[in-house]
Structures are given as structure tokens and as C-alpha cells.
């Protein structure tokens, strides 16, 4: 009697398990031990985000029996190495990180997302899980080629220790007639920055004048804020649509910001900006940040302003706000011999569980539900700011010849904002030389 009850229980248990698996429509998860040992090579950019991911890799390897060799390089070197190491027929890497501007450059070498393997351990990434403004960065010509992996776009940082200082608050109010705070408009940014700069408290602004891609971001930020686009895809081709007057106004305003920026602003790149904002009490009052770098600014061992930064969307220009996107997509080269393992790795990385852990490490995944999770809003104050920035996101132009265009913009933008050339002449030179590049490229 007892024996038959046990038998009945076992049968019912098996039936329920089978039905549950059937209802889910998925295979029972394979155990790592049952999976073959595989190794994949991954090329990523070097910042706190991939570094935080590296700490979690043992978990992935334990679940999949896949060993991941991650190589991290500075962004320009990622581009160089990808160009050398990935071809139509061979590749040194099974997964590559690609800056959004370069997705068109490598599009022909990447495996379309639709052709990626279905995950064995982790389900295939749902494109809808990605923040909508970020989704397009992984696509080219309407084909999704990579999974956008970080929610990187302009977020504004302002030093709370300065704007909450009672003395500065009263002095500023007495002079300008309104309250000191996070600058909401360009006018406020200039006036508050000038106030701090003139009084020797801190430089008013931290520009970015480093690499060509970053300089183009600043130019697009200004131009969009003044109501003009740079290049548009219209009528099946790329055209320069820059409104000269608005572009000049944007450049002139940036020129004013340069006068309240730290010495050496003409060549300020991320290293100098971070040193000025986070390590120098007289450094910088307010500037943009790529959220991917926030972890370094909020690390008390590296930053004097950790926990003392007010985050917001960028201040508005005369025609509104603009937050330039600078996200990365991760993709699988067509030539990879480990496409299945590579896809598994990307599915794991883009999963909700990992996104939640990455947020805890002060980094910015691209998943909407993680970025907008109210549970993180108080402990991660940049997330609500990021959500606000997403509403006014603006992208840099993307096409194969963007490298040449970036150099043209950088050359004349720097000359314009430093006074080495009249701003109108600089804008005209940008338009002329960009048109030459587009024409030569057959657009």
C-alpha cells in the first residue's frame, strides 16, 4: 500500500515537472558539467563598466563551462584592433564592443542579431528590454547587428558643495537675482560658472576638447541646443543640414564657456576633466559626464566629490535640451568560430540579473527596467537624471566616413572656440570640408 503511494507520488511529480517544462516552452536548463568546455575572446573598451563585469565572470563560467578572455583597451585602440583583427573570414575575437559611431564602419563584418543562436542557459536578449533611445545604436540600415549594452548619454554634473554653500548662495542671489543651483539653462550655466570663476572659487565649466569623437559630441550638443542638426539622412543620402547662423551662435556660446574653463581647456580630455572635477577643489563647477565614468567620480578613494554631485539632464539652450548619446553595442563577428558561446555570453551580460548587479557597481546598463527601477533612485541619483536625458537624446551622425568628418569638426571647432579663427569662418570650413568628404564618398 505504502509502495503504491510512493509510486503514485513519483508519477505525479514527474508529470507536473514535464507539464511545467512544456508550459514554459523551454528546455530544462543544461548543467555546466554537461556542456563542452569552450573559450571565447572578447574585445571591450576600458572603463569601470566592463571592469565591473569582469568580477562577475566566474558566475558565467560556472553556469556555462565557457571561459571568457576579456581584453580591454582605450576606445581608439578598440577601433584599431577591431579593424586589424576582424575580417570577413578570420577573427581574433568572438565578441567585440563597438562604439555607436563605428557600427556602420564594421557592419559588413558582423553577424545580424536575427542569426544569433538561441541561448542554451540564458534566453536570447529581448530587444525591447533595451532603452528605446539606445536601441538604434546597435542597428545599421535597419538591421540589428549588436546589443546596446550601456545607457551612455550626456548627464550633467554639478558640485553640490558649491551650490549649497550658504555664502555663495547669498552672494550669487544678490548679484544675479535668482537662486544658485543646478543650471537649467545655458544662461544660468554661464552666469553661475562666471560667478565661481570670477571669485576664484572654481572654474565655471569643464569642456571636452580631447579626441575627435568627443569634440564632435560637444559640437552636436551645442548645435542641437541652438536648434540645428549637423548631418541628416534625407532622400536616401547624407546631407549637411547645418544652419550657419545657429551653428555660429552655438560655437560663440561655447567660446564664452571656454573663458570660464580651467587653464589648458583647449586640450582637456577625460583624464584632465576627471582630475579637475574630482580631485581639485578649485577645479570645475559644472560639466557633462558620460555615465559610464560615474563610478570613478563616485569612488571615495579616487574622488573628493563622491556623494557630493548633483546629477541632471543637460541645461537647455535657446531651442531646448540635447543629450548626446555615446553608447556601446556588443556584437559577434561573422567569422567567429564560437558564435554559440559568444551569444550565450552576450545574453548573460544583457540579462536583468547582471544589469541589477552592474547598477550596484555604479555603472549604467542599457536595460530600461533597471535604469528606471525606483528602488535605485535614491542610492544612485544619476539614474533619474539619465532617464531625463533619455527624453532629449540626440545622436551624432553615423556613416562610414565619420572618422574624417570628426577630424574636420575637431580642427575647426577648436580653432573657433579658442579664437584662432572667426567662428563663422570655422563653421563655413566645417560645412565645406564635410560636403567634400560626403561628395567624394558618393553620397
Amino acid at each position, binding site marked *: 500500500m505504502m509502495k503504491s503511494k510512493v509510486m503514485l507520488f513519483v508519477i505525479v511529480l514527474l508529470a507536473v515537472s514535464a507539464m511545467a517544462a512544456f508550459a514554459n516552452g523551454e528546455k530544462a536548463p543544461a548543467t555546466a558539467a554537461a556542456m563542452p568546455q569552450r573559450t571565447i575572446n572578447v574585445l571591450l573598451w576600458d572603463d569601470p563598466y566592463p571592469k565591473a563585469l569582469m568580477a562577475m565572470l566566474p558566475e558565467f563560467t560556472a553556469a556555462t563551462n565557457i571561459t571568457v578572455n576579456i581584453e580591454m583597451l582605450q576606445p581608439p585602440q578598440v577601433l584599431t584592433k577591431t579593424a586589424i583583427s576582424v575580417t570577413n573570414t578570420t577573427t581574433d575575437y568572438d565578441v567585440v564592443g563597438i562604439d555607436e559611431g563605428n557600427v556602420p*564602419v564594421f557592419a559588413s563584418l558582423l553577424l545580424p542579431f536575427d542569426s544569433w543562436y538561441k541561448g542554451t542557459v540564458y534566453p536570447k536578449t529581448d530587444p525591447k528590454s533595451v532603452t528605446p533611445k539606445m536601441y538604434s545604436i546597435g542597428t545599421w540600415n535597419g538591421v540589428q547587428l549588436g546589443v546596446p549594452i550601456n545607457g551612455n548619454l550626456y548627464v550633467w554634473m554639478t558640485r553640490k558643495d558649491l551650490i549649497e554653500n550658504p555664502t555663495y548662495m547669498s552672494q550669487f542671489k544678490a548679484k544675479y537675482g535668482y537662486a544658485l543651483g543646478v543650471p537649467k539653462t545655458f544662461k544660468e550655466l554661464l552666469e553661475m560658472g562666471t560667478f565661481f570663476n570670477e571669485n576664484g572659487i572654481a572654474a565655471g565649466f569643464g569642456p571636452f576638447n580631447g579626441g575627435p569623437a568627443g569634440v564632435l559630441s560637444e559640437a552636436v550638443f551645442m548645435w542641437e541646443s541652438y536648434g540645428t542638426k549637423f548631418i541628416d539622412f534625407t532622400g536616401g543620402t547624407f546631407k549637411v543640414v547645418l544652419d550657419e547662423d545657429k551653428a555660429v551662435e552655438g560655437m560663440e556660446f561655447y567660446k564664452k564657456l571656454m573663458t570660464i574653463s580651467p587653464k589648458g581647456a583647449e*586640450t582637456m580630455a577625460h583624464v584632465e576633466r576627471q582630475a579637475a572635477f574630482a580631485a581639485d577643489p578649485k577645479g570645475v563647477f559644472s560639466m557633462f559626464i558620460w555615465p559610464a565614468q560615474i563610478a570613478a567620480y563616485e569612488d571615495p578613494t579616487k574622488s573628493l566629490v563622491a556623494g557630493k554631485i548633483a546629477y541632471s539632464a543637460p541645461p537647455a539652450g535657446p531651442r531646448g535640451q540635447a543629450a548626446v548619446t555615446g553608447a556601446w553595442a556588443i556584437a559577434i563577428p561573422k567569422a567567429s568560430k564560437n558564435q554559440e558561446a559568444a551569444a550565450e555570453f552576450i545574453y548573460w551580460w544583457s540579462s536583468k540579473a547582471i544589469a541589477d548587479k552592474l547598477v550596484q557597481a555604479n555603472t549604467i546598463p542599457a536595460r530600461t527596467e533597471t535604469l528606471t527601477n525606483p528602488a535605485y533612485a535614491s542610492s544612485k541619483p544619476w539614474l533619474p537624471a539619465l532617464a531625463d536625458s533619455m527624453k532629449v537624446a540626440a545622436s551624432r551622425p553615423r556613416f*562610414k566616413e565619420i*572618422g574624417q568628418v570628426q577630424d574636420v569638426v575637431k580642427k575647426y571647432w577648436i580653432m573657433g572656440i579658442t579664437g584662432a579663427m572667426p567662428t563663422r569662418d570655422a563653421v563655413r570650413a566645417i560645412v565645406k570640408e564635410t560636403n567634400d568628404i560626403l561628395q567624394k564618398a558618393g553620397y
Partner: protein
Amino acid sequence: MKGAGGHGSPVPFLLPALLIVFAVLIFPIIFSFVVSLFDWPLSAGGGSRRFIGASNYVDLVKDKEFWNSLKLQLGFIFIAIPLELVLGLAAALLLNREFQGGRVIRALILLPVFFLPVVSGMTWRFMLQPRYGALNNFLLALGAPEITWLGDPTFAYAAIIIQDIWRMWPFVFMLLYAGLAGISTDILEAAEIDGAHFSKRLFSIILPLLYPTILTALLLRIIDALRIFSEVYVMTEGGPGMATTLFSLYTHRQAFGYMKVGMASAMAIFLLVISIVFAVTLVRKNMSLEKLEERGGDR
């Protein structure tokens, strides 16, 4: 397999060496030249290339940034290397004697040569940082205004030259010191006894005898300076604007910024031609045996 003199032919013995020379020296040059005749976008993978003849060379000649980079590169060579030679020679003359601590000083002078170029570039970048850089702090202490060294086109160009002089003059010193040590003291002492003062000894004895060493140093430095890249890349990335985009940086940008391998190869071939012109001018016209014998005869 018998040679003219009844000996075995030398070809089998030379063949391995010739093969190695071809593989490591000749083939890359031929390959670069062939690539320079193609439109080969690096980003399109290995397969997508199109023969375009001399179009890359024609485009280069029309490209004002190409000429700008060449001008900057040649300016760099003609400013930095003479100064390195003067400094190296002066130090070699000064230290070519025995004195207390001489060996230590000579060893210390050589230290910058052992700096990795990329480390040297980064060190100078931080040293020249206007706000927290060592140089400006020193100048500020003396009452000078803050200077944005790498933000001004002229200062930035001067900075990369000074960095190179700092790092490489000890190399010239090393060569010239070795050359000086090889000059017989008997000649110099005899000249001194004959009443020749220092400048007479320098221009009539030391420099003529050092001539081959100076030429060697010059040639090595020119070849090295034509290839300068990493220190400038980390110091300025070619900026501000294009103010320090030397030839090598522009070649790199063509290859990995614009993905134009054909164009970058055309620039590499151009650089090779320049190098050959320098080498032929220096070696063939000044270091031929006849010339050296002539100079020996003069002495």
C-alpha cells in the same frame, strides 16, 4: 656549381640569407607598394579591395593635411636633431676626461634614453598640464603666468620637440663620447704643445676625426625621428587642431581613423622614399670610403 675561380658557387651559401632579407625587408616594401595601388577600406574585411592605380598618390598630393604633416615632420627633424647633436657633442667634450664621479654622471645622463617613448610622452603631458603640472607650478612660484603648453599650437609643437631632445640627446652623447674616446690623445697633446687653442683643436682635429661618428648619429636620429609616433600620440594626439599631426600620426589616422589602408600605404612608401633620400645623401656622399680616405689624408 663551380665558380669562376674554380671554387664552388657562393649562391647556395647566400641563399638562406637572401631569403631572409627578402622576407623581412623586401617583401613588406613590395607588399606596401602593391597595397598603395588599391582602395582597401580596412573596415570591410580582407576581401573588399579595388585596384585604383596611382589614385592614392594623386589624392595625397592634393591633400593639404598631407603637406601640413610633412612640413611638421621635416620641421621636427631640422629643429630637434641639430640641437641634440650640439648638446650631445658639448656633453661628450665636457665629460671626455676622468674626474671624481665621472662614471656616475655619464651613466645618469643616459637615463632618458631608457624611457619608453609612450611613458616619456605621458610624463611630459602631465608635467606640462597648466594647473597641476610641475613646470607651471615652478613658473608660478617664480611669478610667471600660467601657460597652456599643449593648448597652444606653437607651444605644443615646441613641447614635442623639447620632449624628443630631452629623451634622445643622451643617445647622441653616447655615440659621440665613444667616438671621442677613440681619438688618440697623442694627436691632441701634440696640437696643444704646438700652441693650438681649444677651438682650433675642435675644428681642425676633433670634428674631422669624429665626422663618421657624427654622420652615423645623424643618420640614426633622422631615421628614428621620421618614425616618431607614440610619444606625440600620447602627448597631444596631433592637436590642438592639427598642430602636431606629424607625418606618422597622419599615416596612422589614414589607416585606423579613416580605415584607408591604401592611402596609409602610399604615405608609408612616401616616407620610405624620404628616408632613402636622407640615407643616400648622408651615406653615399659623405661616408664613402673615398671621402673618408680623403678626410684621413687631410689630417
